[in-house]
């Protein structure tokens, strides 16, 4: 009975004129803000280029995009389709502008929803998600700003030649951590793909300089193997 009343209340709120106006304005503001942020982010490298007397090498950027950017294009489509229903309108605009979705915004919004006990698609969810994501974004901005200010006196230490091996190995450090995280999810596929790619790099060493492009065949092989395994699993379930 109580649930029925709550649903009726949510339906009334959803259809109220004030809420509809709020949502329309949220979309308008969200679109304008997103476009402005996009323009700022894409123009920032050119602004920096003016200061450094350099312009971006567009053919090189296009080549790198074909290698690694495509992976993130697919990833962004999946994130968009999966997370927008959880975040509502206002939360989605803010989350896609401020990033760090999986490691912060989504768990934060879900935590907020659990605290208040709201359901997806309701006006309460729209309000709570927006409040949660806006707050967490502001906290991140503040923490980073304070941290960066505190880092300024440390610049000479960070730039010392002794520490350069550390900064020259940022990428291997990242992939080691990621390998540990992802390989455990499917050891068989991971081993096959790793062996195949290692063999390729050993036999054709010139490919080592184009590792980002080699992500395409490596990813394709992993997806094909995953699909075969998925189909096998489905057939097993069907029997």
């Amino acid at each position, binding site marked *: 009975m109580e649930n029925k009343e709550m649903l009726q209340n949510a339906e009334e709120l959803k259809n109220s004129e004030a809420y509809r106006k709020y949502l329309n304005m949220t979309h308008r503001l969200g679109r304008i803000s997103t476009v402005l942020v996009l323009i700022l982010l894409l123009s920032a490298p050119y602004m920096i280029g003016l200061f450094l007397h350099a312009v971006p090498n567009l053919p090189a950027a296009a080549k790198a995009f074909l290698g690694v950017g495509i992976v993130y294009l697919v990833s962004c489509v999946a994130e968009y389709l999966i997370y927008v229903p959880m975040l509502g309108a206002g939360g989605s605009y803010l989350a896609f502008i*401020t990033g*760090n979705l999986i490691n*912060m915004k989504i768990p934060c919004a879900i935590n907020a929803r659990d605290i208040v006990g709201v359901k997806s698609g309701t006006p309460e969810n729209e309000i709570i998600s927006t409040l949660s994501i806006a707050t967490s974004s502001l906290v*991140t*901005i503040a923490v980073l700003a304070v941290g960066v200010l505190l880092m300024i006196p440390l610049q000479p230490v960070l730039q010392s030649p002794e520490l350069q091996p550390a900064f020259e190995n940022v990428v291997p450090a990242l992939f080691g951590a990621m390998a*540990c995280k992802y390989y455990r999810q499917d050891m068989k596929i991971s081993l096959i793909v790793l062996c195949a790619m290692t063999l390729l790099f050993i036999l054709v060493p010139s490919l080592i300089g184009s*590792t980002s492009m080699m992500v395409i065949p490596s990813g394709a092989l992993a997806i094909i193997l995953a699909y075969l*395994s998925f189909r096998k699993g489905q057939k097993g379930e069907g029997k």
Partner: protein
Amino acid sequence: MELLSLLNSPVLYLICGGIIFFVAVICLVFAVRAYRMGKALGIDTAKMKRVITASATFAVLPSVGILLGVIALSGSLGTPWPWLRLSVIGALHYETQVAEAASEAVGIGRLSISNMTPEAFVTIALLMSFCIMWGMIFVTIHGKAYTKKLSGQTEKKPGTDSGKKKKKLNLKGFGDTAMTAMFIGLVSAYIASYIGTIISGNGRFTFSGSWLPLATAAVSAIAMEVFLRIKKTGHADWVDSFSVAGSMLLAMTAAVFLGKLL
């Protein structure tokens, strides 16, 4: 080193800080509007305040983890640019991979300040901005229609799922698997390149390439394993906020010492 000083100059702080400030204003505007609308809809203000407090405290630990990411990237890209990228839109794993791919494409080899040129930096910066903007584009073009459609779907009565919908859910199951597989492929390409470097980096089967990238990756993997075990045995979910950045920083520290040994 001179370029690193330029990348840490006040002009870059001003450009990056200005954009971050603009994003902070957007967040503030959305928060104030949501709070006012919540009040108008009759949502308990105590509940909304609880959400604000909980979200603020929830965000502190991951934010410190993100700050560690800024430190990790500051040695190769200066501080202001990673500060902007990780405050707005980005994530540490994404930024590092794209920066590495752009370094290769622009012809400076691996991501490193010793090889960096102004042209390489602005190309890397452009690519970092470009590659991850799709979520923003989709939500701008299709967000309104999508959220409206979803809002309509919630009104459907339960128990009306058709066979077609069930089939879609099955495919969604593969979507998650495919995403994991894609990341396995991405990680494998790089790890394999480190092994390939050792064996054939200076010519096929010469076994004279650098061990340092593979050793660094191994230390990072071990550190990540330790973090995951702490999380599992200690039921410490907060470890997730630090696991990637923490593993990276430990491995980078190890690289300083391993560099002298190997």
